[in-house]
């Protein structure tokens, strides 16, 4: 088996994969968000941004492959950990006192994660696939605003972003704890930064469908 496989398949090894992939996804979200915000500047700004990405297509493709690996590791490992942990607990108590011991964000990562996964599949289907495989140039701005004009689509998008905020609020500080970076002086700050990051990410991502649904309908 070898020492590396023993290490990475241990309970702590699996958690380290979650933490490492989680932090990389946190960085990815920042970049993704900054790109999305060009939507507020209108069709030209957004299409120019999308066009710039097209120019660097080989690099984007490599990043996409890496992102796929990161996502798959995070989702697969998360599911495996959830399942083994469920088995390790066995039966539950007659009285549920969880809310006295823990916060809701920490308890619900599998639920929020699952819904974010569904969101991700829909997201790739509606935006990523047409922008890459529709053949020829497409007006990406029109595609995006068209979807956001639909209340059901936007509603689910906003809902998923709120849950993403929940997920990140736990995940951010949890990653640092898993790396062993819990210091009396800095950890309270890390927790605050994590919460701030989670709120900002959720709000800013969700603000885009809100804007196009209510204030800028259709186009």
């Amino acid at each position, binding site marked *: *088996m*070898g*020492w590396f496989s*023993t*290490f990475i398949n*241990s*309970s*702590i*090894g*699996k*958690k*380290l994969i979650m933490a490492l992939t989680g932090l990389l996804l946190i960085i990815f979200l920042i970049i993704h968000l900054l790109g999305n915000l060009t939507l507020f500047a209108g069709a030209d700004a957004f299409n120019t941004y999308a066009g710039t990405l097209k120019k660097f297509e080989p690099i984007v493709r490599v990043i996409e492959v890496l992102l796929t690996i990161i996502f798959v590791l995070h989702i697969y490992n998360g599911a495996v*950990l959830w399942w*083994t*942990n*469920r*088995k*390790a*607990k*066995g*039966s*539950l*108590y*007659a*009285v*549920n*006192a*969880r809310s*006295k*011991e*823990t*916060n809701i964000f*920490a*308890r619900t*990562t599998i639920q929020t994660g699952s819904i974010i996964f569904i969101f991700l599949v829909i997201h790739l289907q509606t935006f990523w696939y047409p922008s890459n495989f529709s053949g020829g140039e497409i007006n990406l701005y029109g595609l995006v605003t068209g979807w956001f004009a639909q209340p059901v689509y936007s509603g689910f998008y906003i809902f998923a972003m709120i849950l993403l905020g929940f997920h990140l609020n*736990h995940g951010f*500080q*949890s990653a640092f*704890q*898993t*790396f*062993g*970076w*819990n*210091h*009396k002086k800095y*950890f309270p700050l890390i927790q605050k930064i994590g919460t701030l990051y989670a709120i900002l990410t959720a709000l800013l991502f969700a603000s885009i469908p809100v804007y196009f649904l209510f204030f800028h309908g259709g186009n």
Partner: protein
Amino acid sequence: MNGNNLNLKLKIWRQPSPKAVGAFKDYSVSVSPDASILEMLDELNNDLERRSEEPVVFESDCREGICGTCGLVINGQPHGPIPKIATCQLHMRHFKDGDTIYIEPFRAKAFPVIKDLAVDRSAFDKIIQAGGYISVNTGGVPDANEIPINKNIASEAFDSAACIGCGACVAACKNGSAMLFVSAKVSQFALLPQGQSERKERVEAMVATMDEMGFGSCTNTYACEAECPKGISVRNIARLNREFLIASLSSQNVEE
């Protein structure tokens, strides 16, 4: 005295054997507010024996919160609703007349029920056997303060060593994880000079045994710290993660 007594309804988990299906059984008791919850169970057991019924099996030893033998889940919380005490230190004055109290065993796959409220915690012993010790040369008693240790380090090691190994962390964890226990035991040695020679092998062996025993992994909900009767900090878990990462990457152990 009897005028002050609390009339309580108890729902106690009864399970005749490890494989049997358990269930809650109702009991009505009248108990002094000055009694501890274990004394209440003692009285109940006296009653049951008088009526030739099977007494409730539960574990206890020192009854002053230092041995870690007692451990009941009271209304869903290991060691009950009051923070930083063991079950034996929980007094009935914290309950109100007419309350219903659920008393259950610690629940985790790695802690199978032996009978009623007693669980088998020998998985903890296996983890300690795997690395929870230091090797010392026999001979004369070493001089006090022969090895200088910074007061802050000594205090931190002592905080970790305050773990009484009761298993409340496992019972509180939604994953049945033993990370708080293992991290406290790894920390107390990793911090002190006496623990250095076996430092890397220790953490590798203890984590491997922890996984083998069927404990879950840590999802950083920190329920363990909230329920620990000794207030062991989850910073120990961060240290364990750190120690395990460093040991895995740098120990001489290439096989397994």
